[in-house]
């Protein structure tokens, strides 16, 4: 039997996907544009005899999550940009103490209180570690409600496999939009939590901590963490491509920006530009090798973001100057239109794509 096809709002789809993935506990604090995720959990989790707590603040929420997750429970937390900033301290503790957890950021415009419009301006915060200290967090970026449903169980898997917090980075449109989805939910196997606290009954006490006061101990702990991050970077790269085989120009975009870019490359092809789309799904680890390989056989790259240019930094690092890189983006809740992206592709083509002998392009 085919899975049921329903119309779901992104925030609610993420919540239900987490429930179906076996999420034991949810902790949150209201903030637009993710409030429906919290409300869905408020209704559904108690129905199932699971834990829902509306915390006193985002600090409260993420630290409740730390406590629950330290016992080996499968835990989800969600918020939006300003709330995510407040959670940075505990995320660093989670990374340092190697506690698995999934955090959803339904990004809104910044800096500061910004706006409640959709945005991708927390990219650098998410992929460069979020809180203090030397660490990385796997970051998964859905470009549709259906993909969000798919990535939630993957996020729990990564979190438990590598004992690390994982971020699902969505934007306000992914959170707010309603799209038809197939209810393809998945409950991943649970990794044994032989490190978790639960009472020292017949075994030596366990301590979930990030403090290593002797400098040599902290150095060793960081080497261990870096080894783990290298393994993740080798094994957990995710990306998708469209029309890349013959592409001369490639748009790099994720999330909602990739949806706009997809329309734009089809239009651009209609007017004779051989355009393709490269869409990172794991923002960390970034698909650097894959993008570099593609960059070696094209004329130029256009990065499209709902920000003033953050992903573009990782694209530059990956491409290492092989081809020119242009940028098109808006901030503050403004979404670039497909027309703007086509125009930007035209400009890039004029500057980079050689005109074939004896004819116009």
């Amino acid at each position: 039997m085919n899975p049921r096809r329903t119309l779901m709002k992104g925030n609610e789809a993420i919540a239900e996907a987490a429930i179906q993935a076996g999420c034991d506990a949810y902790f949150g604090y209201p903030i637009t544009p993710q409030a429906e995720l919290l409300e869905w959990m408020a209704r559904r989790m108690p129905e199932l005899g699971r834990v829902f707590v509306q915390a006193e603040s985002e600090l409260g929420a993420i630290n409740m999550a730390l406590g629950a997750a330290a016992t080996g429970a499968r835990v989800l937390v969600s918020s939006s940009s300003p709330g995510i900033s407040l959670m940075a301290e505990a995320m660093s503790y989670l990374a340092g103490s190697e506690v698995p957890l999934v955090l959803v950021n339904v990004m809104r415009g910044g800096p500061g209180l910004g706006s409640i419009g959709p945005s991708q301006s927390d990219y650098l915060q998410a992929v460069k570690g979020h809180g203090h200290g030397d660490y990385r967090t796997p970051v998964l970026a859905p470009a549709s409600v259906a993909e969000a449903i798919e990535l939630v169980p993957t996020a729990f898997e990564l979190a438990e496999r590598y004992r690390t917090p994982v971020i699902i980075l969505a934007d306000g449109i992914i959170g707010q939009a309603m799209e038809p989805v197939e209810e393809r939910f998945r409950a991943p196997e649970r990794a044994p939590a032989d490190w978790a606290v639960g009472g020292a009954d017949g075994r030596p006490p366990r301590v979930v901590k990030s403090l290593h006061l002797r400098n040599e101990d902290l150095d060793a702990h960081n080497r261990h963490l870096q080894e783990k991050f290298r393994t993740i970077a080798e094994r957990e790269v995710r990306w998708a491509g469209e029309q890349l085989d013959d592409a001369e120009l490639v748009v790099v975009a994720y999330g909602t920006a990739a949806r706009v870019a997809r329309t734009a490359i089809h239009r651009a092809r209609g007017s004779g530009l051989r355009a393709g789309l490269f869409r990172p799904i794991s923002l960390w680890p970034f698909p650097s090798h894959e993008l570099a390989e593609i960059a070696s056989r094209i004329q130029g790259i256009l990065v499209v973001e709902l920000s003033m240019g953050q992903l573009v930094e990782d694209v530059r690092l990956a491409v290492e100057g092989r081809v020119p890189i242009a940028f098109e983006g808006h901030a503050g809740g403004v979404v670039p239109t497909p027309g703007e992206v086509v125009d930007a592709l035209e400009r890039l083509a004029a500057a980079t794509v050689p005109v074939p002998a004896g004819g116009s392009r």
Partner: protein
Amino acid sequence: MSTIDAPPRVIFESPALLADRSTHYCPGCGHGVVHRLVAEVLGELGLGPKTIAVAPVGCAVFIYDYLELDFIEAPHGRAPAVATGVRRVRPDAFVLTYQGDGDLAAIGTGEIVHAAARGEPITAVFVNNGVYGMTGGQMAPTTLLGQRTTSTPTGRQPALHGYPIPITEMLALLPGVAYAARGSVADAGSIGRTKAYLRRACEVQLARAGFAIVEVISNCPVGWGMTPLESIEHLRTVVAAAYPPGVLVDRLKEAPAARGGGAGRVEAPGERQRATGPAPAEG
């Protein structure tokens, strides 16, 4: 030459839950006494194997090295939130937090107030020595007026630094708080009473009556610029006068069916209207 006929009997024993290692605390510090009391009480109640404890940031950050319990290290001030998460997913566990005054009454004010307001069945141990010891003796929220610290070099003045916070009295007002008491480590008598308060705070959790907190006023010889003996005398007289030991509230005792109502139960705002209150909008 006389012989001893009486069978040997134990007159002193280290609590099983107290690790056999020396602590990093300064000579004369009260934390060691409180650690021992916690170890004794948990041991006597047989709670060690089911305890999940939460350690603070501050002088007691290494408590997990001294008590033979499962521990989670919380970020500074967040122990009550961390403990809430544990409480909710581990209903059968015994959940204990241990915090100092800076951790609990300054940076963690929000977390302690709301854990208490929710009536989380958690036992909170709160050691109040009136300074930030770990960072060098700066002013804490509980620092007394006039007290010199490294960040109030001419003494704490209300106009500049505000007033000390009687946080345990504030918490005792909340209907979610089933038990609140203040003990002291100034002398054997007050240490004995503190142990009784701690035991009661554990029983209150076991009865799932609500949140329980025991503040323990303690000494910090180094932070106070005193010898250990001077600091004990100061604790017994000056500090105890400002933060008087005793039971602030015991709602389990006042009303055995505490959570369901009764004489000792404080009525929560809106409680009478609860049955007829507005429902959240649908849609």
